[in-house]
């Protein structure tokens, strides 16, 4: 029934989106293109370039671009060799009236994303406020948890997903979707109530949809606009008229207070709802059907990783570099330039070349993330879970002052969940903890695997990670979800050894009354072992501090 899943229609919509963007790049903001590199994406980009025509700029943004490249300013190399200031135009101003293609948008640095967003809002860039009215094409190659920065994506009208389009379709024009006939009294009201029905919070979505509808200027333009702009942003499915069956027991209150009630005035027509629903990308639809987006999913992958070279912290020497991307170390620069002065024959003036410039090397205190891996199975008992939650909260409150972070993985039933991605937000932590259900088997191996993944992610981001496992060690569910104590135990030990190989400091808190599994696991993990039949957040806090 997901007619939009048909590649021909997806492709037709992708082409329609690019034609609209070419008409008004700045007004519509741009397009997030989720697709791996390949012929389909190339074909789409080629078509966009054609639609823009040769006279309008079409720029590709180099990854890791700095401020001077984006906003313009002094051209250091040219200035130093010429001995007088030479400026150059930044990418944003150079793309005025056209489109900027951003490859690997999921890795975009937060600073760069913020500058792009500001230029989209104001239409200007650079110190002189040059006109920079461009559209953005974010090429998002993210997997699973990675995505283009939310703050930026929110400002762009379209999102397309080309992964399901085979190359042969990309040679065609696709097959246009037939819009349902609607009596379109008021497009504004219709788009707003649709946005509300699909749980889209940002007011930018209906505003962008309205601009698209005006640009289309066809019959039923509002329906097409809703399909193109609103469907890919859906955060929930509109309630079907008859309630099917009782909601599953672990369904949580996800809607912010006040959003659930009174969505009464003028419900959108069913045909329109269906048209939009049918246009929800299959991947997103599966997620929504599976119980809705978790807020954390929707927000994952915010703006790339922290910068590898710190711009703050305590100075620990210097290195060659551009002083506008760090802090000039004047003495070191002079020292580097001094031996060459005679050769360079400066006319009474110090001759400094680009290679002489030195910037300060800084070292920042590295953040530590404590990854809790909590046994939420039936054997660990619900009461334990509540105590574990208390311990996590207490540690979080402490981490909050020290600016450290906390993450929480819970395992129960057949698998493990990342309940709380690394955060120092109390708000988010509380919500994650409050909704944590308990009961079921003990898939210890899956839990440890998940904790390892999180910890390695933290480490990739330049932080330290420590793992705290709270369990009774009685694994009885294997990685594939099958029961069986023997295999589950073997796999758990295997997972524990993987943690040791990664060299992660770890602590195992044995919550079982009779020791056994947990102790052996702690040995396999080379972890500290703490037998604690009664959970006590103070004792855990002290033990965590000891391994950190």
């Amino acid at each position, binding site marked *: 029934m997901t007619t939009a899943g048909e590649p021909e229609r997806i492709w037709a919509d992708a082409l329609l989106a690019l034609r609209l963007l070419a008409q008004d790049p700045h007004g519509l903001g741009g397009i997030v293109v989720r697709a791996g590199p390949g012929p389909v994406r190339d074909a789409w980009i080629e078509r966009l370039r054609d639609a823009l025509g040769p006279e309008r700029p079409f720029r590709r943004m180099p990854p890791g671009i700095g401020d001077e490249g984006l906003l313009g300013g002094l051209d250091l190399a040219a200035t130093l060799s010429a001995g007088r200031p030479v400026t150059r135009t930044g990418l944003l101003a150079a793309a005025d009236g056209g489109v900027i293609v951003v490859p690997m948008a999921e890795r975009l640095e*937060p600073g760069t994303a913020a500058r792009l967003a500001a230029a989209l809002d104001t239409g200007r860039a650079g110190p002189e406020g040059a006109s920079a009215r461009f559209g953005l094409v974010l090429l998002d190659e993210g997997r699973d948890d990675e995505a283009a920065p939310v*703050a930026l994506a929110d400002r762009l009208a379209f999102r397309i997903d080309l992964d399901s389009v085979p190359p042969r379709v990309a040679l065609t024009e696709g097959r246009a979707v037939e819009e349902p006939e609607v009596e379109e009294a008021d497009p504004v*009201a219709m788009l707003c109530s649709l946005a509300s029905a699909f749980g889209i919070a*940002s007011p930018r979505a209906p505003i962008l949809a309205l601009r698209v509808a005006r640009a289309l200027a066809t019959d039923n333009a509002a329906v097409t606009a809703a399909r193109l702009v609103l469907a890919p942003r859906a955060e929930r499915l509109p309630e079907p008229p008859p309630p099917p069956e009782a909601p599953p027991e672990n369904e949580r209150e996800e809607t912010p207070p006040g959003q659930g009630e009174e969505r009464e005035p003028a419900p959108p027509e069913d045909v329109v709802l269906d048209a939009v629903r049918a246009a929800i990308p299959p991947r997103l639809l599966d997620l929504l059907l599976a119980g809705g987006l978790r807020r954390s999913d929707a927000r994952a992958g915010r703006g790339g990783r922290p910068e590898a070279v710190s711009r703050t912290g305590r100075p620990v020497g210097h290195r060659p570099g551009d002083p506008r991307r760090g*802090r000039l170390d004047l003495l070191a620069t002079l020292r580097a330039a001094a031996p060459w002065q005679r050769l360079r024959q400066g006319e009474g003036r110090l001759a400094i070349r680009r290679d002489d410039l030195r910037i300060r090397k800084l070292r920042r205190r590295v953040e530590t993330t404590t990854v809790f891996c909590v046994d939420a199975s039936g054997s660990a008992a619900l009461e334990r879970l509540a105590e574990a939650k208390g311990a996590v909260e207490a540690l979080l409150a402490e981490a909050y002052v020290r600016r450290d972070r906390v993450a929480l993985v819970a395992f129960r039933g057949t698998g493990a969940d990342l309940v709380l991605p690394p955060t120092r937000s109390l*708000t988010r932590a509380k919500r994650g903890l409050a909704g944590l259900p308990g009961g079921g088997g003990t898939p210890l191996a899956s839990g440890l695997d998940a904790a390892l993944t999180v910890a390695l992610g933290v480490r990739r981001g330049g932080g330290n990670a420590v793992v705290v496992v709270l369990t009774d060690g009685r694994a009885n569910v294997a990685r594939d979800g099958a029961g069986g104590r023997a295999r589950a135990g073997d796999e758990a030990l295997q997972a524990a050894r993987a943690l040791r190989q990664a060299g992660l400091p770890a602590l195992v808190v044995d919550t079982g009354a009779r020791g056994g599994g947990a102790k052996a696991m702690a040995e396999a993990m080379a972890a500290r072992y703490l037998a604690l039949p009664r959970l006590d957040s103070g004792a855990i806090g002290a033990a965590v501090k000891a391994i950190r």
Partner: protein
Amino acid sequence: MPPFPFSAIVGQDEMRQALLIAAVDPAVGGVLVFGDRGTGKSTAIRALAALLPPMNAVAGCPYNCDPASPADLCPHCAEGGPRKAQKKPVPVVDLPLGATEDRVVGTLDLERALGAGVKAFEPGLLARANRGFLYIDEVNLLEDHLVDLLLDVAASGVNTVEREGLSLRHPARFVLVGSGNPEEGELRPQLLDRFGLACEVATPTDIATRIAVVRARDAYERDPDAFCAAHAKEDTAIRKRIEAARKRLPAVTVPDAALEQAARLCLALGTDGLRGELTLMRTARALAALDGAGTVTDDHLRRIAPAALRHRLRRNPLDESGSTVRVERALAEVFA
């Protein structure tokens, strides 16, 4: 395109009230706006700045000095020479995420250092924001040391530069407006406390308001000039209200009873230090001035208390109730 008119902003009453108070008395110490994306935070600040009467500034002064103020504070005006006045719009300066300290504070002017071999100061964002607004989106993601620095300058009104062999001070009085989403990380409590007012904005949840928001935006985009003209009268009324309030502010009195109520409120909430009381008094006075009242009453206190106090409560990670609820509970107790 003229900026969106302030009077055409739909809803967000608390944020608008906080911004007006900061415009009347910049010394209240910054406004923190926490909430969802796309709720018009940046639009509201730009709109307010555009609505304010243009200021008199010394022509060519990078720090927007007031010709009436003493010249010795500013490195540009202190050099002497004619101080010609010029009308300038009230500046709104954006501080982008990932800005370096150099860009914010100002630094050695590389262009002149390399080109002419002159040691000169290149003013940073703080200089440009003097007498205007400094807007920081996602202030919660800003590096801590930068936030420290900003709050320090905002409180003292002077930016002291000691770096790269430069040593100078220049005036930097601005209203600091920070915005952010608490889901993405929080500010340290020490920093939170230093913002004068904190408000929460949320996406409107009822469809009627959402429709009104989209309609206003659409009308503005289709014909900005006509839209602004239609709201010019209301905008003018707000400007007059701000100007009148600024004049009245020094004369607004705070009766002892109001002081006592403020102290009792802060005591009931257990806020640390005296900053809570001081801000509560300052903001209540500005609010009274805006209302055209001569004295601060309980009503003013009650209306401003949530914004003035909600970010000063001691955090209790195990207390589930939000800070707004706690302030309201205390208000009900004290004003019973």
